[in-house]
Structures are given as C-alpha cells and as structure tokens.
C-alpha cells in the first residue's frame, strides 16, 4: 500500500463516530479555560479510518506472519489465539480496577494462581505481578533492593550496583535511576562475565548484582552460584534478570542458585503478545527476606476468597492498580495449557531449535560464533565480522536486506561488543522447516553480499518505502517527531 499520512486523508466535516448528546444543560467555561481553536485532528469517515489502519496493519510484520527467530533476546513465540479471547472477555476487559474485591474474585484468583506457578518455577517466596513490563520489573527489583538496605541502615553505604555487559541495558539504566553507581563486568575469554572483575568490584558499597543468565550470548554462566556467593559475602543482594528464562524452565531455578530477587517477562517466556512494544507484563519474585518490600497490593488467599493486601514495607505502586491484567490472564492460560511436562518440552525444544539453527548458521561462509566452543541455551549472538571484512557489508545492511524476504533480523543492543553482531532466538514455536528457511535466507543474503555488495547495501527493494536518510532524524533543525513539526520545518506536504 502507498498509504498517506492520516492527516492527508482529512476532509472538513467528516466524522468516524458519533458522540452522545449532552442531555443536560451545557457548561459555560471561563475565559482562558475553554479551548479557542479546535485541535487540527484529521476528519475521516469510519470506512476511511478502518481502511487506513487495516492497511497499516498489513504493512507490519507481526510474529503471526513470519518465522520470527531473528529478534534474538525478544523470545518471539506463538501467542495462542484462545488466550486473547480470555483477555477480551468483558469479565476482564470491562472490570474497573477499584471495584470491590468481592466483585472480582475470578481475576484475583488468576493473579493468585499465576503467582503460585511462578513461585514454583523460580523457587521464590512470593511474586508480584504488578510491573508493566520487564524493565519496570527490573526497576521494581532495584527499588526493593534500595528499601531493603535502607531498612537495615545501609542505604547510604551501599551505593553501587554491578551488572554485566551482556545483561539487558535496563539493568544498568534502572540502577542508575535508582541512584546507584553502575559497574559493568565485561566477558572473559570464555564468554562468561569476568569473575575476577567481580571479585575486584564487590565490597561494602555493593548493593546488588543484577545479572542475566544465560546472557544474551546464549551462554549459561556455570559459576553463577559463586557470583551470588561473592555478592552475598559482601552483604549485597543478587538479582536475576530472567528475560532469558525460556530455555531453562523447569531445568534450574533462580532461588536454587541463591538469588534474592528475579524477574520474568510475561511477554517473552510466558507468551503474551508483544503488541508492537507493550502492553507487556513483568513479574518480580523475591525471597522471604524481601517479601515485606514487594510492590503493593498483592493477592492473598483466605479460604476460598481472595483479598488485596499491601506488604508491610512495600515500595509502593510501580504501576497504577494491580497489574496488566489481560496479560496476567493470558500467561496463566498459557501455563495451564502446558503444565510441568509441557514447560519442560518448551525449554528443551527451544534449546534444541537454537542449537539446530546454530549448526546451520555456523556453516554459512562469513558467519561466525564468538566463543564457539561454548554450549548455548536459548539464543546465540553471532557475528558477520568475516563477511564484513571480505565484502564491506555490515550487519545492519544484511538485516535490511533480510527484511525483503519477509523476516526480522536484529543486531544487538549497543555497544557492539561482538563485532557485526546478529542475534537469533528460535524459541519452541518454530518448526524445523522454518529454521531451515531462515538459515537459507541468511545464506542467500551473505552470498549476495559477496557477489554484489552494492546490491545488498541498496536494500530494501520489496518494502513499502526505500532506504531512509537517517540524518533527518538526528538533526534538530530537520527532525520531525510529529506531523505539525514536519509541516513547520519542511512546509511542503511531501518531502523532496
């Protein structure tokens, strides 16, 4: 589709939907309070709105449509349609979050049940389902860590958080927001976070270690318990970012390795849809010692009924109300479709798929696998370094060309510790033939790069639009973060 911007479709006087008449006397607003000029919103009939947005949807490559193994670290898995039907049920969708508890027993029970499930999966004492997403859960964990140390009178003293380069950037960023100095451990020659660097870093100023495992490289740190113990010995807490939990469900548990806190992303491991980037949902699990600090309220069971309680020393609300309920419902339904055996099949199959794809990709000339001798769990961070040296084509350019074949492809978070990176995570949702097809696309594009690097650099060729000039996005004189800014800066209705 060559779909115009919604403002360009506007014609005066059109309307997409009617509004009820006041039925009561109009209110005269005081001068300065009333809006004088109507907002320059577009005016469209309903059919036009539908057509516009449905066309835009078709220009969006949702996981429902593609072999979505190329967004490594994102755990793109099938989000069962039946779970959407529960989330859209009026008995979820139409519930107000401040209704009396006795009118929402069903939804409270689902919160309670999912908490029990996540307790068992993590080994933790309690789990809060309040955070709106993974980073919010990380923030909630750091807020609990801060409150914990403050309650012990060590709030001032413990002002450092240690994390690793292959943990999600939000671990570093949230700790910073919470007032901590951040120390980042780099990988050692084996691809593990450097334990000697940790030894050097821990001490009386250590508030916590915030670490992913397996890291975004797909490597499981075999000395993780030592990491936790080093931090504990120094009086710090150990906090487990379980964004990469998909490959270890039922295999190993956060608490068993000694962690004090952990979090899951329900929109990754537990299949709730990614929704273009949220609404998502996060879950924070904590050990007994941290239970009093959990965000409130939590759901308690009393006989057959369920009530809301605020933990004694709660850090307060991380998010308004109880949590992202539709996703809590979806995640619960997902687990209930799988059970313990199913979750283990999820983990094992995700890991099998990852290693199968690894075997295929490793054979593509130009692709390489840093720390190649290490085993991988759920994903792999690969490198096109050799291909780039040979052809001058960079990983980002490979990715844009791959889009022409209807697949996503993600490099990695900055900084690129692995040169020319790309990150694949097949999860359990994709079939063997899917993995073969994805690997074949990469091999094809690598071949193109060797034969005609300029051709690859000129991509995309089969998308709605062609290569974007990025300078217009970083130059304050040109950038246009809204249509009104665009009209002001560029005047003409169409660029160029």
């Amino acid at each position, binding site marked *: 589709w060559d779909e115009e911007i919604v403002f360009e479709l506007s014609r005066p006087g059109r309307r997409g939907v009617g509004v*009820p008449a006041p*039925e009561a006397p*109009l209110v005269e607003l005081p001068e300065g309070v009333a809006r004088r000029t109507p907002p320059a919103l577009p005016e469209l009939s309903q059919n036009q709105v539908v057509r*516009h947005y449905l066309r835009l949807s078709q220009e969006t490559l949702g996981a429902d449509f593609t072999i979505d193994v190329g967004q490594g670290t994102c755990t793109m898995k099938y989000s069962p349609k039946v779970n959407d039907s529960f989330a859209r049920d009026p008995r979820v969708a139409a519930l107000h979050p401040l209704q009396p508890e006795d009118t929402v027993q069903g939804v409270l029970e689902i919160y309670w049940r999912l908490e029990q499930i996540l307790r068992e999966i993590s080994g933790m004492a309690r789990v809060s389902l309040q955070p709106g997403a993974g980073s919010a859960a990380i923030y909630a964990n750091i807020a609990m860590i801060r409150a914990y140390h403050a309650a012990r009178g060590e709030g001032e003293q413990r002002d450092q958080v240690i994390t690793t380069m292959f943990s999600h950037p939000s671990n570093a960023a949230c700790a910073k927001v919470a007032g901590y100095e951040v120390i980042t451990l780099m990988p050692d020659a084996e691809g593990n976070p450097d334990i000697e660097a940790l030894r050097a870093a821990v001490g009386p100023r250590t508030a916590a270690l915030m670490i992913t495992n397996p890291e975004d490289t797909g490597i499981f740190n075999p000395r993780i318990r030592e990491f936790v113990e080093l931090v504990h010995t120094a009086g710090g807490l150990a906090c487990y970012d379980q964004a990469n939990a998909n490959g270890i469900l039922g295999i190993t548990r956060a608490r068993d390795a000694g962690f004090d806190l952990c979090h899951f992303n329900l929109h990754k491991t537990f299949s709730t849809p990614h929704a273009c980037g949220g609404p998502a949902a996060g879950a924070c699990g904590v050990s007994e010692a941290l239970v009093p600090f959990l965000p409130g309220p939590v759901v308690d069971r009393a006989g057959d009924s369920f009530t809301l309680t605020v933990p004694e020393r709660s850090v307060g609300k991380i998010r308004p109300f109880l949590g992202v309920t*539709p996703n809590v419902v979806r995640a619960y339904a997902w687990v209930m479709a799988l059970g313990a055996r*199913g979750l283990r099949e999820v983990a094992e199959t995700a890991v099998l798929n990852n290693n199968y794809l690894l075997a295929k990709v490793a054979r593509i000339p130009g692709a390489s696998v840093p720390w190649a001798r290490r085993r991988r769990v759920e994903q792999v961070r690969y490198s096109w370094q050799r291909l780039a040296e040979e052809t001058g084509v960079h990983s980002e350019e490979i990715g844009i060309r791959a889009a022409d074949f209807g697949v996503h492809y993600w490099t990695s978070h900055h900084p690129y510790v692995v040169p020319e990176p790309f990150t694949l995570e097949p999860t359990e949702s994709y079939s063997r033939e899917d993995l073969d097809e994805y690997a074949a696309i990469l091999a094809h594009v690598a071949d193109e790069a060797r034969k005609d690097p300029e051709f690859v650099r000129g991509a995309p060729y089969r998308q709605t639009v062609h290569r974007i000039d990025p300078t217009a996005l970083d130059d304050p004189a040109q950038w246009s*973060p809204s*249509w009104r800014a665009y009209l002001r800066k560029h005047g003409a209705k169409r660029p160029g």
Partner: protein
Amino acid sequence: MTHPYIPNAGPETRAAMLAEIGAPDVAEFYRDIPADLRLDRPLDLPEPFADEQGLTRHLRGLLARNTDPAALLSFLGHGCYPHYVPAVCDEVNGRGEFLTAYAGEPYADHGRFQALFEYVSMMAELLEMDVVNVPTYDGYQAAGTALRMAARRTGRARVMVSGATAADKLAKIRDYLAPDVEVLLAPVADSGELGEVRLDDTFAALYLETPTVHGVVETRGRELAELAHGVGALLVVGTDPISLGVLAPPASWGADLVCGDIQSLGMHPQYGGGQAGFIASHDDERLVAEFPSRLFGIAPTEVPGEYGFGDVFYDRTSFALREEGKEWVGTAAALWGITAGVYLALMGPQGMRELGETILARTRYAMRALAAAGAVVRHQESVHFREFAVEVPDADALLAALRGRGILGGVRLGPREVLVCVTEQHSVADIDTLAAAVRDALTALAAAAPAPAPAAPAAPDAPAAPGAAT
C-alpha cells in the same frame, strides 16, 4: 500428541534434529548448568488442559467468579475511566499484525512506525506541542519522568507538586525522584485548585494537574506558568487528553511539559490493564534530549515523495547508552498508543469537542443531582470535568447501601469522602438512578444514627485504600 504450541516436540523430529546437530541428546546443551543447580524433579504445577476446550471451560469458569460488569452501574474513576470504546479501536488493536509485532526495523514494520507516528502527531495537535513520546507504561511513570526531565533540564533538585494529586501517584513520584530530587507538596485551595505556592530558583518545576484528583479544572494556569517561569522553573502539567476538545491545552497557557495517561482514549479498563503514559514538550532541542522514551519521526527516503519513519535522536536512550542514557526505555504500551490514534482519528476535532461538552454537562448535572439528594458536593463552585468528590457521614455505609442496588457509587477517598465519576457512558437516567439511591441511602443512614458533625475534608495525601474501593 505433539503439543500444538511446540511443533518440533515429536520424538522423530527431535531425533532427526539432534542427528543434524551431532548431539546425543538435549541434555548435552545444558551441560554448563552445574548438577547441583539442576532441578531434579518435575515442577509441581497444576495439571494442564491438553485440549483447548478444557482450558476454555476452566478460564471461563474462573472469570465467571467476577460479577458480570453489565450487571453493575458503576461510577468508579480515579485514574481509570469507563469511556466508550468505539468498535474500530478493538478491531485495529486485535489485528494479529499489530498484536504480535515487536521491535522490527522501519522497513518490515513500516505500518507500526506510521501508526505510532500518527498517534504522536494527533496527540501533538490536541496538546499543541510538537513532541510526544511513544507511550510509556502509564500516567504515574509519565509524571515521574517528566519531573526528572525538568530536573535534568534545569540542573535543579527540587520540585513542587500539587497536593491535589492522587495519593498513590504522589507516592510513586516521590519514590521515583527520591535519589536525586526532593518533592515538596503544594497546598490545595478551598476551590480545589492549587493554593498559594512560593517558588525560588532552587525549583526545577511546578507540577499540577487539571482536572485534579477531584475533577477540578485549574483556572489559574497562566498565572502559575508565569510564577514558575519567573524563577526559571518549568511548569509540568498532568492532564487527561480526553478533556482537550473543550479545555484549553496546557501549552496554550504556558506549560513546558505535559503528561498523563491515555487510557481514556479507546482503552477498556481491563482491571488496570489499559493504562499508558504520554509526555509532551515543545520542540526544544535541550528538552528533547531529556526524553528517555522513543520518539518516532518522519524522514525522507531515497525515493522523492516517500515517507519513511525512524527514531528521533536515538543516542539519548538506554538502548544506545545503557546507564548513560536518560533513565531507561523498554517495552511499555505501544499498542495502546496506536489505539489512541485510532480513537482520535475517529473522533476528529468535532467529536472531541462534543464529547467534552457532554462530559462537562453531565458532570455538572450529577453534582446538582447528588447535592439535591443530600450529599455535600465539594468544590461545588469550581468547574469539574468528569469527577467530583462528595462528603457523606459514612462513605463505607453509603457505598455498601448503593452496592445493594447494583450500583458502584464511587471510589472511597476517605472515611467520609467519595469520588464520583461521570462519563458520556452515564446517561442522565443513570445519574438519576444514582441520585435516587443516594437519597434513600442517606435517609436510611440518618435514621439509623445521629447526624455527625460536618465531615472534614480528607487530607489530600491521605493514603487511598490499597486496591479496592469498598
């Protein structure tokens, strides 16, 4: 049966793939996990439902323990509002393309970028500000971040926050700013508007909301903007964009940053699942630099006449800079942004105006009806949008009595205070039903107990009930 969600789980497939890899078994891939960290038993989880029908019966059974919302007449608001959701909003956000997309690049996900660019652009028109972020989690987070942005922008470490802000939200703001920024509480005047505040050049920002937690519309905006600007502070305003078809946008009276929640714009309440936050500013390079969120912009492509989209000034985010970025960015609530865009495109300027007029009119009607029914309406002389507080002898008793008639009468703000919410979904007949029930309940309560002294207004920062209204 091979599980429907796990295509390669069948034993033949598994064996063939292992052979291709050259691995003896799946355990091989786990060998880096020390034996003493391995769980040596199956997880102790409830028996699953192998069939979708059984799962459906189980979930529908659980949901049936909720009272059917259609059987309740609800006047609950206080941060989550029962506005009408046009069917087209649900149609668009239910599309598999949008529902299951994530973080693709601008080419494969051109439609996602365009839809979010259009959302921020329509918000920008409503707000009369050039810069609006891709949604953050919720209005609480938006307020916290906006105030942090102000602190960074001014290099100052104190903010003055209106006392007419919801207690939970205030607590979140305090917690979020705690490491770096001191939060002072501004008093609330008898009118329900912001009271007298004094600022000096240590203040990064003055934060106020309109409508306030009590639904009161601020009328001294320009004066307060001048007050803040006079000391070099920013004016940060929390608002609900659904009011801006009729209310002057805060930018028009001097706001530097505007923030809030967009749940009103096409999201069902979803027991709190419909929240999403926005932050807006003018196109001031130094303020834009302080946004932690993604900002989507329009850009030319190699082909003249094409619109491309991308991230504006990406190198300020934690994705780019880790802890050196501005706060953090992550998955938040993008789909609700797209949905709010659909809502605004359906409504257009006239729809937003008519909607605002209807809500203003019905709010006033409800205030008068409840006053006539014997409740003491707070801030009765002020302009209200959608919410107002009433004082009653016993909030719990009143709400319980209403509940007996299938009415959720409002949110309990204190022992003698109830917050009532009226949207376009509440017809005049619905309001009359509420008023009649309130009259009966108050009469019954008065008969049952001696009349108490007039209730003192609840302290503005008194903690609200943890989660439930009654």
